[in-house]
């Protein structure tokens, strides 16, 4: 049994123009101590997937249409809010992209971390404080004792993201979901935060789901990768395999269209067109209108995710020909 088991997860939102499906038929497992990368562009559904797992989407307008999420053997989908609250923080916790809007500006960071601990554990104020110091220390905030009394605005962006991670770790979760944790950070600070996440996995054996649009962040951290496009998983593979032998034309396109420091490219191979809006997704394969390998059959039906071996799967009807 995996720590997290997601099956056929489908989430829709009520809008003025009727119900729009945001993510569709998402299935994957995440093991204890594993770092799973989810990569996709805007509208791919990567954040909605995470928020559905956490039960953090307001229902309505959101609705889980079908599918299930099991965490440590417990079914989360349909679970009462009271029981979900117990799991959030202590079982699964989440770090968001923008630490400034996720932290309370009028509480000191010490109070905020202690509040998280208090919500899940019956321990004395003194122990809450010790835990807060331990966590700030753990995420590399210098002179943690002194910084407990600081307010979020007194810290830099990188430090605030460390505080967010400290709060997420305060109740020793088994799974940390990090949604674009370094997107708002400068590159030297991004490197520090990615190193920190990997150290935490090694030392605490925590599983991490890292959600990003940046293939470089995936290459640096993930053990296994899901590639999402327009609400669906289009490819799934161990990280080295994905970069060496990408199968889906979208994954290949993503890898070819970014300039890299390692090689010189005269001209970038752009993916034509733009991302479809959730309400106007094309029939059949959603990438087909932008794909250079498109044939008529691509638009006839949504291609299922098909395994090419035990660890690698792609949702493309032309995999045999293109591989």
């Amino acid at each position, binding site marked *: 049994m995996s720590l997290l088991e997601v099956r056929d997860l489908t989430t829709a939102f009520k809008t003025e123009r009727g119900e729009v499906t945001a993510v569709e038929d998402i299935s994957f497992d995440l093991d204890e101590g594993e770092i799973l990368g989810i990569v996709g562009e805007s509208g791919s559904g990567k954040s909605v997937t995470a928020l559905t797992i956490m039960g953090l989407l307001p229902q309505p307008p959101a609705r889980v249409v079908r599918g299930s999420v099991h965490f440590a053997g417990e079914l989360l989908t349909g679970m009462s809010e009271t029981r979900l609250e117990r799991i959030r923080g202590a079982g699964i916790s989440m770090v968001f992209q923008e630490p400034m809007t996720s932290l309370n500006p009028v509480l000191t960071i010490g109070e905020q971390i202690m509040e998280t601990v208090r919500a899940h554990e019956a321990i004395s104020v003194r122990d809450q404080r010790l835990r807060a110091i331990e966590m700030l220390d753990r995420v590399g905030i210098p002179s943690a004792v002194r910084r407990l009394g600081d307010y979020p605005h007194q810290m830099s962006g990188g430090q605030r993201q460390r505080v967010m991670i400290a709060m997420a770790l305060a109740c020793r979760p088994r799974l940390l979901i990090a949604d674009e944790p370094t997107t708002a950070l400068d*590159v*030297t600070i*991004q490197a520090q935060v990615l*190193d920190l996440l990997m150290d935490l996995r090694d030392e605490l054996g925590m599983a991490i789901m890292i959600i990003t649009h940046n293939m470089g962040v995936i*290459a640096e951290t993930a053990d296994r990768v899901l590639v999402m496009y327009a609400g669906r998983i289009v490819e799934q593979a161990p*990280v080295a395999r994905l970069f060496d032998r990408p199968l889906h034309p979208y994954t290949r396109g993503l890898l070819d269209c970014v300039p*890299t*420091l390692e090689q010189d490219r005269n001209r*970038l191979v752009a993916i034509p067109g733009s991302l479809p809006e959730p309400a106007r997704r094309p029939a059949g394969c959603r990438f087909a209108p932008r794909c250079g390998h498109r044939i008529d059959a691509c638009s006839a039906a949504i291609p299922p995710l098909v395994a090419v071996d035990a660890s690698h799967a792609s949702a493309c009807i032309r995999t045999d020909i293109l591989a």
Partner: protein
Amino acid sequence: MTALVSATGLTKHFAVRGGSFLRRHTTALRAVDGVDLQIRSGETLGLVGESGCGKSTLGRLLIRLIEPTGGRIDFDGHEITGLSTKAMRQHRRAMQIIFQDPYGALNPRMSVEDIIMEPLLIHGARADAATRAKVAEALRLVGLPARAAQRFPHEFSGGQRQRVGIARALVLNPKFVVCDEPVSALDVSVQAQIVNLLQDLQKELGLTFLFIAHDLSVVKHISDRVAVMYLGKVVEVAEKHAIYSAPQHPYTQALIAAVPVLRPQDRARGRRVRIAGDIPSALNPPSGCRFHTRCPHVMPICRVQEPALTEPAPAHHVACHLVNPV
């Protein structure tokens, strides 16, 4: 090659009010602090650095969108610092800017044609057939269909809006274009389209670009030379292959080492020296070399004396005491 744009000792200090409400005081935020920089005719100079280093301020100073506190700017053989608004006008059309956010930079109530035509009208054109023809030509240049003229910004995707922003910048036939993070707000799969477009336009129209970005990979791809800024100072300038294969300044080295590599088997973690700590505030920059608080090679002199920009190798400028011992 001759310099089209040249900055000498260029400085911009912003006054920032601080303190408690009983003890108000103003401090100078030294956004750009004595920058010397030449941009050669026909080249793309990449300008990189982290948030708050002053790269966008420098870009705006060079085309006088904001007024410098000190120093001098020369454009196409003329000093333009201190020119009156009227005297500036003849130079204005030769220098344009493309902004990062294609959502915020276009007036949502104007049609694409009006948006692109506006700079022509400001420079004395009439809204006649000849002017409309120029708008149509600008749309063609950036790869938008002629029918786009009658539509409004919200009808376009981010990449298409950025094309409108580029058309507006190019309609006056400028010589010099400041590209301020032109692809940062775009989805990865769309970025390449805009990067390719900018390169094609440069070739076709003989443009000179200052390409400001925090993404070192994009800058490497598009630039001929690269300048690195840290806390209001240019710390290194060189031809791009020299910057990326033999960076001299410890900050440039750290910046390049921090970029994730697209090869999972070569993960950087634990293998490379990474700089610790945060970027200090430009309100109160460190003494001496501004990078000394984070530099892995810091020496006593770095804390007291600011290193000058020197040329240790031909056309490679570095401001570091390691490279140029006192």
